[in-house]
């Protein structure tokens, strides 16, 4: 699985932000992850709670992950729906011309600490 590789990037970015913001004791790292990504949150938590002790300033940090549902909008009829399965065809007018408006994001939203 790739959760370890993803968390390595999370810590790289979070640690830079920590240093820039003069935070010595990080309390929370908040991520936003779209449901289209194959990421197992329990595995993320498990790795986070191991890896955090290897980086200065993160011993007390908790990981919060905000999950985003995949949403498509039809460019023909304007119908906007949450995807139940990965069928990107418009269920109202059958058009293939749809746009994913949410659900494939994966970013660090914020950092909290003092």
């Amino acid at each position: 699985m790739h959760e370890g590789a993803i968390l390595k990037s999370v810590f790289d970015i979070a640690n830079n932000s920590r240093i820039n913001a003069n935070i010595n004791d990080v309390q929370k790292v908040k991520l936003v992850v779209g449901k289209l990504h194959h990421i197992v949150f329990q595995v993320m938590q498990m790795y986070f709670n191991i890896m955090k002790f290897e980086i200065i300033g993160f011993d007390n940090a908790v990981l919060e992950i905000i999950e985003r549902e995949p949403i498509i909008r039809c460019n023909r009829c304007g119908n906007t729906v949450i995807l139940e399965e990965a069928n990107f065809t418009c269920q109202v007018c059958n058009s293939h011309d749809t746009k994913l408006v949410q659900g494939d994001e994966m970013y660090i939203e914020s950092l909290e600490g003092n």
Partner: protein
Amino acid sequence: METKKIKVMQKILDINDRIASELRNYLEKQGILYLNMMSSPGSGKTSLIEKTANKFKDSIFVIEGDIQNTLDAERLNNLGIGVYQINTGPFGGDCHLEAGWIKTAIEEIDLASVKYLFVENIGNLVCPAEFDIGAHINIVILSVAEGEDKQFKYPLAFRNSQLCIISKTDLLPYLDIDLKMMKDNIKKVNSQIEIIELSTKNGEGLSYWYEYLTQNNNC
């Protein structure tokens, strides 16, 4: 002490994505078509590369991703094909390749006569789909034996690919699979994706594949 809250708003795979873009541009400038092959184990990636190398000879180079062994690299090496092996074992046995590893590989490869650079990614449809390695064309390979619903289970691999190869069509007479439904389902996940059906065993469809490669190499 007061708690500070800092907005970060940075993509987690930002650095990987930046290296991927660099690679994409660099290889385009060199006139090399860069293709990333993703599939479950056994869908026929290595077999198709073997066939292709027979046809395109020295203009092909292959980067092999494997967790542990070098069997595929040896298979290709025995055919006289240029191969570079990346074992992800040292990186903790990752099930994907990252742009930075390809960049390091490319720095060691002599690309002078190369027109097509293939990456055989690690055999699964989950992890490789998450990491952009900068390929000009991402290819997802699905054999007819894998059923009609894989694209719904691994949508990212299909969303992020420009070409889907349906492989092992010689097996169709022995299977109950509905090929039309399989293709319709693939288009439901990605309506823009091109589809080529082929068999490396009896050779059907291979001419479309060779044509696809020639057409997309604009030099």
